[in-house]
């Protein structure tokens, strides 16, 4: 119980700090929503009038305080750029980005874990060597580049999908998931490589420990030892890594959304930062921070379940 209380406080503190930092950043960078909205039609008078209308003329702490109070009540205000409520906008976009992240995460798990186990088991074998070389190459390729390659090869040459024709899940769920499969692969590729490498070395190291020799001496077979003992212990660093990877994938989605013209939370975030639409940026960043914190928390809990030693 004390553990839960402690975690809850740290989650809330993180969100508070993040929201304040975003607000601060917006106070520091040049331009604001009024200037951005007026563009080259901006005259000092029109800016002043619009600032007053938007409430941007009030002091920094008053604005932050107001924002915090209504946010606590669940009201994140209205977007300056689109006139829609921020909650509605995020409600539209979040499922898209989450679907993309979860999809790439699944692809990663499905590919990385069997590959990691295989290469560890056949360490030094021909296939292991080939996989490790390919791994090294894939790790080195930045995701936006693999994104462009995937659109070119699978989109233009093979025509497995039509780059730029993203449809929302509300319109057609099948086409939505089909389209997302390609950016998801682009996001997952370097992560697969990293996970394979980590799992392989973690397994090999673990397999050299004394308890493994004991398990063998008791008459266990290779597979039995591997899955029942070694894998369980080797998974702990991997799970921590996977949690980090998932949050990384959300960040990766932000870039891929740009390359694949997917109108998710990342596109919303980028455009809102450039138009200084701070109600949207605040809400999106706090939400992303919350996801990051929760995923890490989940990893923490999972590790404690796998290894009772962590609990003490």
């Amino acid at each position: 119980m004390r553990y839960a209380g402690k975690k809850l406080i740290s989650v809330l503190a993180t969100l508070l700090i993040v929201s304040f930092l975003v607000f601060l950043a917006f106070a520091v960078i040049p331009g604001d929503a009024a200037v951005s909205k007026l563009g080259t039609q901006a005259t000092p008078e029109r800016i002043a009038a619009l600032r007053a209308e938007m409430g941007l003329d009030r002091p920094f702490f008053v604005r932050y305080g107001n924002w915090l109070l209504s946010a606590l009540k669940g009201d994140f205000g209205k977007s300056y750029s689109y006139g829609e409520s921020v909650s509605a906008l995020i409600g539209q976009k979040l499922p898209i980005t989450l679907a993309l992240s979860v999809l790439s995460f699944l692809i990663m798990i499905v590919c990385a874990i069997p590959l990691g186990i295989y290469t560890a088991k056949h360490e030094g074998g021909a296939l292991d060597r080939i996989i490790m070389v390919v791994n090294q190459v894939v790790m080195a390729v930045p995701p936006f580049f693999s994104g462009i390659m995937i659109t070119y090869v699978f989109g233009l040459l093979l025509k497995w999908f039509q780059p730029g024709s993203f449809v929302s899940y509300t319109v057609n769920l099948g086409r939505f998931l089909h389209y997302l499969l390609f950016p998801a692969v682009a996001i997952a590729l370097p992560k697969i490589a990293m996970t394979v490498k980590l799992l392989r070395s973690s397994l090999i190291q673990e397999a050299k420990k004394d308890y493994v020799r004991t398990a063998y001496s008791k008459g266990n077979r290779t597979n039995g030892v591997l899955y029942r003992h070694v894998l369980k212990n080797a998974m702990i660093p991997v799970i921590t890594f996977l949690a980090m990877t998932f949050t990384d994938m959300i960040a990766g989605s932000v870039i891929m959304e740009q390359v694949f013209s997917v109108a998710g939370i990342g596109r919303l975030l980028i455009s809102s930062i450039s138009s200084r639409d701070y109600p949207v940026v605040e809400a999106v960043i706090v939400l992303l921070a919350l996801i990051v914190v929760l995923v890490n928390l989940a990893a923490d809990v999972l590790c404690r379940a796998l290894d009772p030693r962590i609990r003490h």
Partner: protein
Amino acid sequence: MKKFVFLSVLLTLTIALSACSGDKADDSSRSDESSITIGIPQDIEDSLDPHAAVAAGTEEILFNIFEGLVKPDSDGNLVPAVASDYKIEDEGKTYTFYLREGVKFHDGTPVTVEDIKYSIERCADTSGEGTLLVSAFSNIESVEIVDEKTVSIRLMNADTDFLSELTSAVIPAWNEDPAGNPIGTGPYRYVSRVVQDSIQLEKFEDYWGTPANITNITLKVIADSDMIVTNLKSGAIDMFCRISTDQANELAGTEFDVYEGTMNLVQAMYLNNAFEPFADVRVRQALCYAVDAQAILDLAFDGKGTVIGSSMFPAFGKYYMPELSNAYPRDVEKAKALLAEAGYADGLSFTITVPSNYQQHVDTAQIIVEQLKEVNVNASINLVEWETWVNDAYVGRQFEATVVGVDASTLSARALLERFNSDNSKNFINFNSAAYDEAYQAALASTDDAEQSAYYKTCEQVLSDEAANVYIQDMASLVALNNRYGGYVFYPMYVQDFAKLYVRE
């Protein structure tokens, strides 16, 4: 663990399978011939309310949804729109408009003279409670409803150029949410939008004039400019305006036609005349002699574009002075001599601020930097975000030099020349010339068309003589359109006319 892996594989397979059915649905929607998908570089982020919209990228789309009493045609003339006819009296002090018979808003309600009065007063801020939305409307004394077909606008000072401002949209007085529910009289009506993804337009069946050809238009936001060609080739979009010469070359030999027109922008290295070295006209002239605009066109733009020499572009034929483009032929020695005269014999350093989202301006600035090295001028480029540029350079006037393109919001020389008045709020280069102010005021006061044009030309001449800016070019505008469609027309303004597009047989 095994079970988990199995489940994941199953899920991936399901998705992959659903993909196949997805593809077929896609094919059938493609064969619907009266629709077109047009890529746009950014979503509409300022407003769908035509009076609040300010971005050029927004206005060019709203052109299809809204109309004013008059509207521009592709030849640069003002033609009657919501008004069927008009009369200018008192040497430009009274403008009387006759409402066109049978003009309807997109919801089917007829346009009334009250709507016209409301729309003008809203922009003129006659109540004093809002903001002046069209600066020229500050000259309006009153808007009167003469009868149910006639509206008369009285100006405080005579202004024969005022008609070009009346392209400002007529919207229904009863619409309480013009930004969320945009209703106009144009050939297309707004249907819906998905933020950062797309905007749907539909042909307005009750349009008073020549109806649009294509029924459904999807405007698709392509935020990553590197993906434009890919998305055109994949068939996701059928059209994209203002592609680069590189992109046009990539499209050569495909099913895309590339139309070439003019961008109708004055691209220049704008000089902050208040920045110490540039306060001296000799320094500004030296920079003009040092920069070779044609070389910039050849190097960065495949030779496309028109070299210009003042704040006017060729599409404004009546006012354009082609001879000014050669006022400062490249002359390194002369540039050096002028700099030495001004006390910069040992060279000069300054920063060119460029908004990083405009590759064409960044390219131009890079070549300028190289050319200036030959006259011992050391310029460095400072790339900034667009919003930072607007805030610091444009509104704050905190810059030394900047490369951007300036467009015209109306079909009038005033749209380009007004800002260089010494006391104009948009005079971001701090240009200050008594001769200019005088000529500009004379142009405004003039009621004779020929005389007025002559004064505007004097203004352009002053900008050239004073080397207010280092003028470069009116860029070429390249439009990619799938050859299944035709009918793209260029306007002398920053607008797109979707109504003229058609599907080829």
